[in-house]
């Protein structure tokens, strides 16, 4: 199955929880925020939300920036 992860196609064998996806990507869940199919996930729900074929997942964190244009997307 294929999901769209941060705008790019990403292959998975089977549906996984958000927590499992983060573990697979070696991302510390305390440092990020997640949007799943345009819904921002509450921090406590990463274990419960399942990522399935065709889903869109955005994983973001904080980076340096002062104002518009000081960092590029």
């Amino acid at each position, binding site marked *: 199955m294929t999901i769209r992860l941060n705008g*790019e196609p990403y292959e998975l064998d089977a549906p996984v929880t958000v927590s499992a996806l983060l573990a697979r*990507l070696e991302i510390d869940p305390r440092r990020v925020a997640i949007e799943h199919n345009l819904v921002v996930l*509450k921090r406590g729900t990463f274990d419960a939300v399942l990522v399935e074929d065709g889903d869109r997942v955005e994983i973001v*964190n*904080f980076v*340096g*920036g002062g*104002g518009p244009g000081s960092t590029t997307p």
Partner: protein
Amino acid sequence: MSTDQLVIAGRTFGSRLIVGTGKYASNEIMARAHEASGADMITVAVRRVNISDRSRESLLDFIDTSRYFILPNTAGCYTAEEAIRTARLAREAGLSSWVKLEVIGDERTLFPDNEELLVATKALVQDGFVVLPYTNDDPISCRKLEEAGAAAVMPLGAPIGSGLGIQNRHNIEIIVEGAHVPVIVDAGVGTASDAAIAMELGVDGVLMNTGIAGATDPVAMATAMRLATQAGRLAHLAGRIPRRRYAAASSPVGGTVGA
């Protein structure tokens, strides 16, 4: 100065200088500049995690979040929808429901799109955010943002990163006179005198990034900006003398030798 504090949405800040986290040569220099600036609010951007390269250091390793209040921003957003999504993500990532709201209208000028900004401000205020919108030096835009529930208004002094200083002092003064929320000059400050001028005009604070991060010695410039912000505030409170076109002697007129 301890009794003269910046209060936004009921929260008190000891410093009237707010600083950014972009464009520093290293995270270590950034941390030292933050220290030197005396700021207690720091703004950060929100971006996609780099999935393929996880080696990069985390910004928050270099900011003591027990000491600094983190103000996430929506830098790089060009529509209200993008800005609202980004603000909601930032709230979950972190540390507060405050957002420095930026909706940009044009890549070359980075001027705000005030129409989209107003839409996003209304939506986020309704959603419980403390919204600090970055806007033009336009009193009407500022008034509308305040009416929409903005906790402060942040007019630009000049385009982002331009270092041109306060381009329209009269507009900033009109904004200050009309506002019932704090006014923070955000963008355009190039050197210490620009920060002092902004504060002398009566604004409640100054936000800057490039002016410090882009200086040859960012730590020294951060110190200069701290002092200039304080000096400008003091001068504002002290009440400057009126401007006049001709001299007014400061020594007694009579009693000179040979009179």
